[in-house]
């Protein structure tokens, strides 16, 4: 409170401050500095928002585009054909099983004879390969007009010597007796280009095999016949379906072409409307008029397809009856246990397949070409679609499930491997390691992060893949599901490498979490007489569990977003992994959300439905990453009482 008597003089402090104050462009420099720092911090936020906006802008059009495409798919009648064609694919799987059963059965009788024949033919080929040059010279000499007899004689001798040497040097397998070997050697030495007939012993071997094969075919006649019948059964039906498919495809192509022309015309007209120059305007209008094409009469062409519904149903019914008959006459017996299992599998599979075909045929009547495709069914077709088919001459499908399942399985493998490794390493480093060990372990693990992921991809292809394949062939490991594995590049391989990549993140964050456990907890536990292990597992780890969980989640975020390794190593088969194989499914190849974008985005035309679909995948990937990171933060907040 100033008393009125004191002269009003500003306090010394404010005088001093004012005297120093300068302004830049009328703004206090303090504020300028503040704005500078603030704007740098907000750049990150702005960029994030921009990323979201651009992803959405490119991707969100996908739904209406895909809706139009699915509409065409329906209106042109492709969907109608697929009703029958899709379940018919099962036929191929069944007949392939049968073929395997047949060949396994036949081999029980003919395998020895065939091996002999094959071995002899292989030897003959080896001799021919070794004597290729003199043979070629001789052939040329023989074809020359007029013939030069001396030259031919020289070449013939050379060939004879080379053949004899080659025949002698051959490594004859043990299946041939001494006499046979000698005869083979003699026959090989006498090979000449003029004689096209097989040498006598080879002829005998071939004849023996044919005899055995005939015998086997007689013995398993019912099986062979059933297999042939089953394969033939599909032919009349397939013929009808193929005719319909051709028609539908023709309609679709016309409709697509019309769409393109129509869009073009409208664009030209629009340009003409805004054009001010009269000449230009006239030329644009003229061009637009030329672009007019005849609209496809969808209704008429669809009637050509649906008109044959009755015929199609009849064929399906016939097919079902034939295959059921074939199933009934399938013999109980087959050559080997594996073959019997296959035959049984087919026998059980056929009735289900027949039922499926009949059910499909029954839905044909209810199918309407003009039923609109709702936006919800488009969303469903994307998020729950089981097929990702692109650049197809028939129809592109953008189903998300094959990619998502691949990504999830790989991420699960990676996390299952990386979590124990990194958490245990973090506990050891934080609680048990000496200072020297700490100084060594931490930089080494953190260095893993510096390895470029493409290098890890190389390692996956060249090293890990072969290693897993070799290990899977060890006889005492055959109890492991999925062993021996077929593909070197598979989800397990990718999961291992991703685990390796996730370890530094998870290790460092877990170690931090353990470090953040208050010293006082350890004091209290020690003072109560707890051993080091008891303190670690009853106090430190439970107190740091939120940090550890959030470390695992951030590791998961890293794994889901990783691209290069999965692209190189996961095998890139775009199909839902065959979960019926049980845990062995992890040794199958798959494709991923990230990999598909990296692989396909460079090759698609900008703005096409495929392009947009890839952006949709990007949006979903972005959403998953955000969700995982948000969960990590939520977990860290939720279980961190000592920081509250």
């Amino acid at each position: 409170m100033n008393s009125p008597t004191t002269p009003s003089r500003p306090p010394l402090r404010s005088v001093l401050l004012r005297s120093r104050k300068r302004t830049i462009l009328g703004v206090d420099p303090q504020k300028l500095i503040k704005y500078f720092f603030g704007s740098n911090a907000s750049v990150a936020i702005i960029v994030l928002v921009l990323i979201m906006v651009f992803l959405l802008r490119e991707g969100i059009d996908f739904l209406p585009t895909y809706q139009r495409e699915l509409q065409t798919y329906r209106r042109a009648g492709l969907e109608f054909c697929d009703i029958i064609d899709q379940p018919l694919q099962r036929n191929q799987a069944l007949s392939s099983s049968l073929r395997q059963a047949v060949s396994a059965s036949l081999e029980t009788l003919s395998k020895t004879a065939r091996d002999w024949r094959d071995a002899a033919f292989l030897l003959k080929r080896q001799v021919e390969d070794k004597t290729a040059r003199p043979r070629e010279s001789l052939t040329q000499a023989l074809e020359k007009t007029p013939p030069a007899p001396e030259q031919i004689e020289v070449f013939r001798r050379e060939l004879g010597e080379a053949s004899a040497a080659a025949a002698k040097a051959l490594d004859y397998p043990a299946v041939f007796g001494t006499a046979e070997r000698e005869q083979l050697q003699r026959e090989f030495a006498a090979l000449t280009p003029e004689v096209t007939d097989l040498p006598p012993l080879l002829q005998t071997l071939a004849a023996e095999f044919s005899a055995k094969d005939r015998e086997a075919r007689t013995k398993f006649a019912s099986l062979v016949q059933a297999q042939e019948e089953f394969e033939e059964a599909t032919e009349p039906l397939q013929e009808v379906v193929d005719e319909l498919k051709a028609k539908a495809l023709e309609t679709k192509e016309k409709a697509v072409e019309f769409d393109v022309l129509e869009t073009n015309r409208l664009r030209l007209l629009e340009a003409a409307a805004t054009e001010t120059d009269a000449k230009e305007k006239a030329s644009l209008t003229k061009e637009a008029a030329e672009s007019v094409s005849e609209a496809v009469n969808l209704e008429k062409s669809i009637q050509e397809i649906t008109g044959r519904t009755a015929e199609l149903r009849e064929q399906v019914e016939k097919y079902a009856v034939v295959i059921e008959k074939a199933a009934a006459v399938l013999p109980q017996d087959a050559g080997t246990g594996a073959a019997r299992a296959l035959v049984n599998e087919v026998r059980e599979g056929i009735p289900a397949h027949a039922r499926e075909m009949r059910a499909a045929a029954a839905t044909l009547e209810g199918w309407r070409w003009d039923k609109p495709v709702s936006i919800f069914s488009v969303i469903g077709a994307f998020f729950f679609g089981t097929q990702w088919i692109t650049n197809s001459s028939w129809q592109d499908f953008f189903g998300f499930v094959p990619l998502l399942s691949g990504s999830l399985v790989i991420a699960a493998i990676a996390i299952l491997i990386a979590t124990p490794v990194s958490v245990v390493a973090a506990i050891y480093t934080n609680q048990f390691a000496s200072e020297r060990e700490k100084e060594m372990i931490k930089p080494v693990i953190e260095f893993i992060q510096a390895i470029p992921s493409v290098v890890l991809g190389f390692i996956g292809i060249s090293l890990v893949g072969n290693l897993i394949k070799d290990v899977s062939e060890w006889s005492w490991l055959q109890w492991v599901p999925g062993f021996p594995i077929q593909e070197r590049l598979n989800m397990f391989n990718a999961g291992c490498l991703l685990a390796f990549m996730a370890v530094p993140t998870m290790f460092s964050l877990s170690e931090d979490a353990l470090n953040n456990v208050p010293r006082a907890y350890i004091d209290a536990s020690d003072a109560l007489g707890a051993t080091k292990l008891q303190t670690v597992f009853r106090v430190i780890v439970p107190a740091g569990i939120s940090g550890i969980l959030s470390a695992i989640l951030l590791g998961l975020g890293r794994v889901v977003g990783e691209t290069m390794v999965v692209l190189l190593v996961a095998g890139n088969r775009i199909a839902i992994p065959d979960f019926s194989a049980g845990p062995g499914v992890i040794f199958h190849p798959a494709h991923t959300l990230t990999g598909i974008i990296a692989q396909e985005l460079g090759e698609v035309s900008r703005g096409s439905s495929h392009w947009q679909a890839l952006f949709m995948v990007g949006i979903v990937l972005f959403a998953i990453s955000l969700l995982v990171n948000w969960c990590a933060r939520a977990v860290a907040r939720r279980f961190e009482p000592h920081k509250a």
Partner: protein
Amino acid sequence: MSAEPTAKTTPPPVVQVRDMDFCYGDSKALFDINLKVKYHRVTALIGPSGCGKSTLLRCINRMNDRVPSARVTKGEVLVKGKNIHDADVDLTQLRKQVGMVFQKSNPFPKSIYENVAYGLRIHGEKNKSVLDEAVERSLTHAALWEELKDRLQANALALSGGQQQRLCIARAIATVPDVLLMDEPCSALDPISTLKIEELMHQLAHEFTVVIVTHNMQQAVRVSDYTAFLHLGKLVEFAPTEELFTNPREKLTEAYLRGTFS
């Protein structure tokens, strides 16, 4: 230098420190300490900051072992007549015998029940009824049972500061130690909570032998039966509390009590 208390004791001293020197690396922290802690009495250690009273306290349950370079260089510490640095001493058992409460309350981020039961659990007790009984007894001793018996499963960190410190006392006495060490247990508490803990200490002295480090001389007067005054790592005077405060024998003690230095 050191002063033996004059009163004759019938039960032997629970803790006895004999001619002990203690070093952190090359620097000596305690010089030639002699101290006898009486059975079921409260002994207070007072002295200016850095005089070594906490170090001396931590020698009794070998908490100093965790500091890599710290060691006793001369003399010995006996708990119930046994040298605690002997090779056959099990550190786990020693710390079960000698409980400790810290300056800042440090309950584990677990439930109240689990906090109190922790000591028993790590010593292998699995029987639920034994644990239940021990939790009730310890909380009763710590004057918490009535307040908390209905929410034993609540997180201990949700308790007030004073309650947390009493919970730490309950945790320390759950294993029924012979000696309870308290390292400035009230320094982070408000006056009312401090009062409650001081009342509690009188109660605890019926069951346990208590050694308390305090920088608050009034507190030493209020709670202790014997007081030891340390200065620069040396035990200046050790006497019954009343005697030490009313009639100190050493000039240094008198100066400290008067507030000439602190």
